[in-house]
């Protein structure tokens, strides 16, 4: 059967070259980068090379790159580490209402530790309201965390403006960006954006799972959240995941090759898909469609069909998509993001996310549209009465 993978915001297929490199590092250059002998030095080279690559892509310093087990750990380290290191300056944190659970639940944990957290509301396109940010800032604020691209509806946040507002209010307030969905689709330069910390993940950019990175501006005070052998300047102990780091680096280099071309292609496919899918009655596309939205994410509500049913019906035709956000959709609860953008009641449990990659083709999109034209009317006929 044909396989059409449109769940690239959940995870991506690794580049073949990444798979080969990971195997080589694991089976041949398997040394511990902390070992003093040649095997160790060999392994350490991969880490150096990866730092160079990421530093160059983000226009930051190599010593400002730290490797973690993925986007979730990067977010945890940034929020918990920075909050604890700076709590003498204040105990107020700000984030948005539509962040990934890695941010929302970490913030909830910090609330238990005695911090106060403001969750900023978003407009109907899923963008934070800058006015609300201005109002939320106070003397006690020490950290603001806003995502680059929302993982469920693909809205792009006004990071530069938000960071500008925060820094104008008080330059000591730290600004963190969860760029897990934005990295590899946008050129993200934290220093220009006035961002102090930035999280990325390997498996969203055709790299391995279990690897991520956190940019930490060199003057930011941060405390470690895991303890051990004091690797990575004691910010993140634990033997480095050398194979993952090498894979992440290669994936990052590869995805940024001809980026504009890839993004333009995805945008074209997104437009085409939206035009096609909105021909089906009682459907809605959440968020914005235009250039200001992420090129790869399309969130569509199909009134009258439970998303899980449509998901399995598409799966039956070889098409893989998510209901809501895959990271959160193991437990069937209504998406906080859709509620946050004020989506209609009829779409809350009836929305699918289609997410593309550079490998997505026009033919695949057309096949998906044809399949939807066939099955949506059939599924709508049978509903709970």
């Amino acid at each position, binding site marked *: 059967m044909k396989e059409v993978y449109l769940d690239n915001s959940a995870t991506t297929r690794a580049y073949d070259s990444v798979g080969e490199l990971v195997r080589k590092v694991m089976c041949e250059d398997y040394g511990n980068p902390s070992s003093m002998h040649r095997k160790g030095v060999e392994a350490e080279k991969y880490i150096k090379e990866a730092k160079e690559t990421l530093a160059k892509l983000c226009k930051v310093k190599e010593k400002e790159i730290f490797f973690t087990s993925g986007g979730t750990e990067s977010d945890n380290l940034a929020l918990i580490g920075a909050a604890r290191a700076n709590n003498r300056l204040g105990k107020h944190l700000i984030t948005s209402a539509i962040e990934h659970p890695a941010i929302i639940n970490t913030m909830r944990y910090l609330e238990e530790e005695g911090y106060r957290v403001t969750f900023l509301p978003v407009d109907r396109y899923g963008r934070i309201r800058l006015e609300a940010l201005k109002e939320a800032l106070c003397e006690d604020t020490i950290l603001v965390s806003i995502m680059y691209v929302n993982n469920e509806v693909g809205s792009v946040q006004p990071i530069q403006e938000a960071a500008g507002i925060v820094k104008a209010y008080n330059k000591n307030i730290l600004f963190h960006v969860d760029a897990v969905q934005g990295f590899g689709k946008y050129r993200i330069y934290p220093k220009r954006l006035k961002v102090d910390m930035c999280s990325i993940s390997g498996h969203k950019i055709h790299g391995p799972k279990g690897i991520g990175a956190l940019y930490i501006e060199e003057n930011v005070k941060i405390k470690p959240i895991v303890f051990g052998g004091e690797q990575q300047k004691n910010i993140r102990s634990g033997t480095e995941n050398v194979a993952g780091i090498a894979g992440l680096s290669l994936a990052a280099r590869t995805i940024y090759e001809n980026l504009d071309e890839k993004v333009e292609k995805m945008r074209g496919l997104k437009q085409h898909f939206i035009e096609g899918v909105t021909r089906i009655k009682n459907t809605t596309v959440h968020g914005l469609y235009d250039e200001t939205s992420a090129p790869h994410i399309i969130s569509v509500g199909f009134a009258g069909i439970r998303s899980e049913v449509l998901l399995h019906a598409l799966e*039956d035709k070889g098409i893989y998509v998510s209901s809501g956000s895959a990271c959160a959709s193991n437990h069937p609860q209504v998406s906080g993001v859709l509620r946050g953008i004020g989506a209609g009641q009829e779409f809350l449990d009836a929305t699918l996310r289609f997410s593309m990659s550079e490998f997505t083709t026009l033919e695949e999109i057309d096949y998906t549209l044809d399949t939807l034209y066939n099955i949506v009317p059939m599924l709508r006929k049978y509903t709970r009465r």
Partner: protein
Amino acid sequence: MRFSTFLLKYGEIGIKGKNRYLFEDALVRQVKRALSKVDGEFKVYKSQARIYVDCEGEYDYEDTVEHLKRVFGLVGICPVVRLKDEGFEELKKDVVSYMDEIYPEKKLTFKVETRRAKKSYPKNSMEISRDLGEAVLYAFPDIRVDVHHPDVMLNVEVRTDGIYVYSQVIPGAGGMPVGTNGKAMLLLSGGIDSPVAGYMIAKRGVELEAVYFHAPPYTSERAKQKVVDLAEIVSRYAGPIKLHVVNFTDIQLYIYDQCPHDELTIIMRRYMMRIAEHFSGKSKCLGLITGESIGQVASQTMQSLAATNDVCQMPVYRPLIGFDKRDIVETAEKIGTFETSIQPYEDCCTIFVAKHPVTKPDVEVIRRSEERLCERIEELFEAAVTTEEIIKIG
């Protein structure tokens, strides 16, 4: 000191007259099957109305006991220390150190019970019991003898191949060995009840087959995997299970199209019973098993049960019929199915369920509603049973 043998005690099957060997042989087979999943080499044999498991070489004691505890038909599992006969003085020392190791607290009463199968042994049973008892008393001043109600019954068996010492009895699962009471077809959903129902019937020695109704795309691969996982857990007790997975979607949608909506669940269940019976006939099953319990949901009122039962030719066994949910959950937790059962995947019974289903269906009315299906139902039934997927579990 190392347990190198298990002596297995069985209950009800001890009284089965001339058929006893059939039950014993079935029990030996079940013990062998259970131990085939444990690392190590085990020799299982029966001797003098007991079953012995000799553990050759290295084996995992806890894992072995865990597996033996799942064998229906066993009432007690006794870990045995097997000693070489090196004279009575050595035996005394060994028995004293056995007591020392097994009962570190020492505040207890005991009695020695000896069986002497090796008649050439220099002392008789009485003498052995007496002298060993004396040795234990002498070694541990806090221990006392109580011949009527001892805390510890220290068993010593003098056999030609060595001397067996045991005193602990780990409770077994009870029931009867699977394979001694025919076979039945379990209607297995992903819920809490049906795995427990299967377990209970298997405990009476009945071999299981199972049928699961899958309704893609309304139910997911994970819902099906959940049922496979549940069947796997039940099979740890019940032995291998042949699971029939039936695609029920088309039948369900056809009923939805043709029949009154508040009767959907009842009519659906009547077709599930018919399909289960169809497979039962082919696999020589002697009855159906369901997890129904009176009044638990709309489809399990007395009227609904009667309406469902109306289509069955075979006996339908409902071992949970008088159980409260609480009791069912307790058993589900005990046998290890509960955690899996509560995973939140929709099953085919709930997807189209009416807001107000009939709770007191009239059999005549239901039969008339079903007549509306006459045009295509045979064809759909045929398609459903011929496209079944069979998964062998355990």
